[in-house]
């Protein structure tokens, strides 16, 4: 933000001046507004593809910056007459308080930074004008150039709300323009209003009513007066219909039943429907793509070398793993968008609020935790439904304790091998342990780290039900999916390649990339780490190396055991089971079952998989992901040791 408040001279850029090389543009505009008002859509439509996304220097707040080029009215269409505005899309904020880092950042950028932006563009939601105007009331307390853009006018009208922009402009004391960023409607009016505001003298700040002591009360009073004269509301059919539906959705017995039905559907869709797609992509990469790569390496004379190993077991396997998550994530994001957009999610929050309140979490946290039992990766992404960053963080920390279906396959295998006809009971017990870990984990974190987190009482707006629009659903899905692939992609591929690399480095002689796992650096490290697990009864390198593989992907553990013991046929567990039984018998000093239970608990609680970690990095950053890893490994270690030491007395 360098070129500031220089008045009218910056509005007539000469063709010969080249200061657009020096500064970002002819003027700097900051876009502010409450979350979900269409602020970023407007920004994207104005700036087109000329956008850089990233953390603002020195902060962790993500800010989009872009250049808006246009020809003001009355200028020629020549390149040199183009007006260039540096646009900064600030994070969503309801007010300028310091309640959240995002709001604090917005405050710094718009109010405290000197010089501030040349103009502040405030985006407000016509359907929720009352809550959009608080920010405007604060911004109007000082003299600054601003334009208010009203979005969602069509949505508001469908709900019987009419916003009178002329009156609104008069009472706010700044220009007000209706825009529809998605359909690019109202852009000419907006452009004109911005230019007029840039050229006009600074508007006078609004005078606060000093009779009212509390700043907040005064602002809400001001807003109420403005709403009275600039907005009319008629009870709409939609609202009446919505009230009728709510009679069932929120009813004492039926409501929770419908809720369970919806949760069941989400769970089914994210497991059974996504599974064949995942399998198909998995098979595609393990089969034809890998075979193609092997054929190619042989063609160039590198068959059987480390190059082949790197391509097939490193790169292709990593990219394949990332892509197998794509259908699952797409489905999850579509379901999230549908639930949010239809209005049901807010009702679900009302129904589950009291139950989740035990963990200090709002009702919305129920959804990600349920999804976690299917797969942790989309569950982490589903924490987006939580508005409070702290509650989101707490939920992200708890999700890895939910027993996903990949862990289930290993539990079923171990249950069959070690518990025979009690296999089902053993697996069921693991689900109970999983729920217990979530509850204990939640209570423990609330009692320590998040002690200051007051359990916020439920106050939630229930929007009228609506049929979700395909366009909005798809755009929300695509933005979230792209974000996941960008952040998670690198992490997953690098992790898979690293495991390959460790398995390729020989320690007992041999050629790089052409050795058995037992002779690799990987096995050597597993042997070194194994004694740590002796108190839990499973301190053998074969078992530990299975855990390391499980760190990359839980479902790969069985095949890794097969690889370690040199067994090709994994359909029948007997042969593999014998090997595993022997390993556990030796490492536990004869208390096999106690060690297996301890191992299952460890397997349940420790770091889920690299894809979950990647999703965590995406949602809460490296620092908290690291804290999560320590929390999970710590919990797993303590729980498995306690379990083994107690159980070996009886088993």
């Amino acid at each position, binding site marked *: 933000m360098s070129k500031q408040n220089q008045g009218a001279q910056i509005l007539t850029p000469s063709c010969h001046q080249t200061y657009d090389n020096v500064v970002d543009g002819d003027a700097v505009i900051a876009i502010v507004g409450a979350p979900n008002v269409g602020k970023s859509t407007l920004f994207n439509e104005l700036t087109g593809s000329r956008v850089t996304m990233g953390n603002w220097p020195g902060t962790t707040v993500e800010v989009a910056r872009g250049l808006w080029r246009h020809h003001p009215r009355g200028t020629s269409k020549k390149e040199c007459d183009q007006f260039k505005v540096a646009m900064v899309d600030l994070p969503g904020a309801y007010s300028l308080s310091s309640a959240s880092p995002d709001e604090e950042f917005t405050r710094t950028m718009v109010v405290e930074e000197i010089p501030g932006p040349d103009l502040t563009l405030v985006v407000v939601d016509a359907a929720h004008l*009352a809550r959009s105007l608080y920010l405007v009331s604060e911004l109007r307390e000082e003299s600054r150039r601003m334009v208010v853009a009203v979005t969602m006018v069509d949505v508001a009208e469908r709900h019987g709300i009419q916003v009178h922009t002329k009156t609104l402009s008069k009472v706010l004391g700044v220009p007000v323009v209706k825009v529809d960023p998605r359909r690019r409607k109202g852009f000419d009016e907006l452009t004109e209003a911005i230019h007029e505001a840039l050229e006009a003298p600074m508007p006078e700040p609004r005078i606060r009513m000093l009779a009212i002591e509390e700043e907040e009360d005064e602002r809400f009073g001001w807003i109420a007066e403005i709403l009275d004269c600039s907005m009319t509301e008629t009870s709409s059919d939609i609202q009446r219909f919505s009230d009728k539906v709510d009679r069932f959705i929120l009813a004492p017995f039926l409501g929770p039943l419908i809720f369970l039905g919806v949760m069941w559907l989400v769970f089914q869709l994210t497991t059974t429907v996504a599974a064949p797609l995942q399998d198909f992509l998995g098979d595609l990469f393990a089969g034809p793509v890998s075979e193609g790569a092997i054929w190619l390496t042989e063609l160039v004379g590198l068959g059987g070398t480390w190059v082949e190993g790197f391509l097939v077991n490193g790169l292709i396997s990593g990219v394949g793993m990332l892509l197998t998550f794509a259908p699952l994530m797409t489905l999850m994001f579509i379901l999230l968008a549908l639930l949010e957009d239809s209005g049901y999610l807010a009702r679900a929050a*009302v129904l589950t609020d009291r139950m989740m309140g035990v963990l200090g979490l709002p009702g919305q946290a129920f959804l990600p935790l349920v999804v976690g039992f299917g797969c942790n990766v989309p569950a982490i992404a589903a924490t987006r439904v939580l508005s409070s960053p702290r509650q989101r963080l707490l939920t992200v920390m708890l999700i890895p304790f939910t027993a996903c279906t990949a862990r289930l396959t290993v539990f079923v295998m171990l249950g069959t091998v070690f518990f025979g006809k009690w296999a089902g009971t053993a697996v069921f017990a693991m689900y109970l342990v999983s729920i217990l870990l979530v509850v204990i984990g939640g209570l423990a974190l609330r009692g320590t780290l998040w002690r200051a987190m007051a359990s*916020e009482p439920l106050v939630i707006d229930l929007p009228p039900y609506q049929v979700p629009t395909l366009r909005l659903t798809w755009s929300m899905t695509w933005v979230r999916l792209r974000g996941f692939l960008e952040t998670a992609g690198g992490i997953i591929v690098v992790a898979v390649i690293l495991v390959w690399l460790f398995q390729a480095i020989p320690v007992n002689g041999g050629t790089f990339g052409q050795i058995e796992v037992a002779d690799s650096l990987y096995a050597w490290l597993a042997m070194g780490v194994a004694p740590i697990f002796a108190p839990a009864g499973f301190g053998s390198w074969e078992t530990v190396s299975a855990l390391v593989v499980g760190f990359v992907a839980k479902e790969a553990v069985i095949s890794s055991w097969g690889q370690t013991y040199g067994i090709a046929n994994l359909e029948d567990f007997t042969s593999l089971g014998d090997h595993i039984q022997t390993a556990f018998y030796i490492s536990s000093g004869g208390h096999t079952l106690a060690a297996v239970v301890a191992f299952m608990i460890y397997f349940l609680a420790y770091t889920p998989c690299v894809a979950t970690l990647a999703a965590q990095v995406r949602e809460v950053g490296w620092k908290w992901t690291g804290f999560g890893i320590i929390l999970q490994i710590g919990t797993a270690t303590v729980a498995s040791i306690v379990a083994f030491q107690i159980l070996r007395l009886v088993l």
Partner: protein
Amino acid sequence: MTTSPITGFSLAKAPLNSTFTIINVPTDPVVAHRMMTLGWRPGAQVRVMKKASGGAKIIDLNGSRVAVSGALARTLCVEAVA
């Protein structure tokens, strides 16, 4: 019309589908701010639409529906419309 000497009572006790005047705001400033953003302010009118499963009250504030937990509803005071 108002013959009862008690003018204020808690929102949790307010009968369904009648309109009342809001008297106070929540004591917690964060909650107060959120409620006020949704249109809750002393002097404004409110109507309890329904008690939801789980104990929350669904209220009508300026034509919008807002769910308020039962516990919070007990701390909010309303009175009969003058």
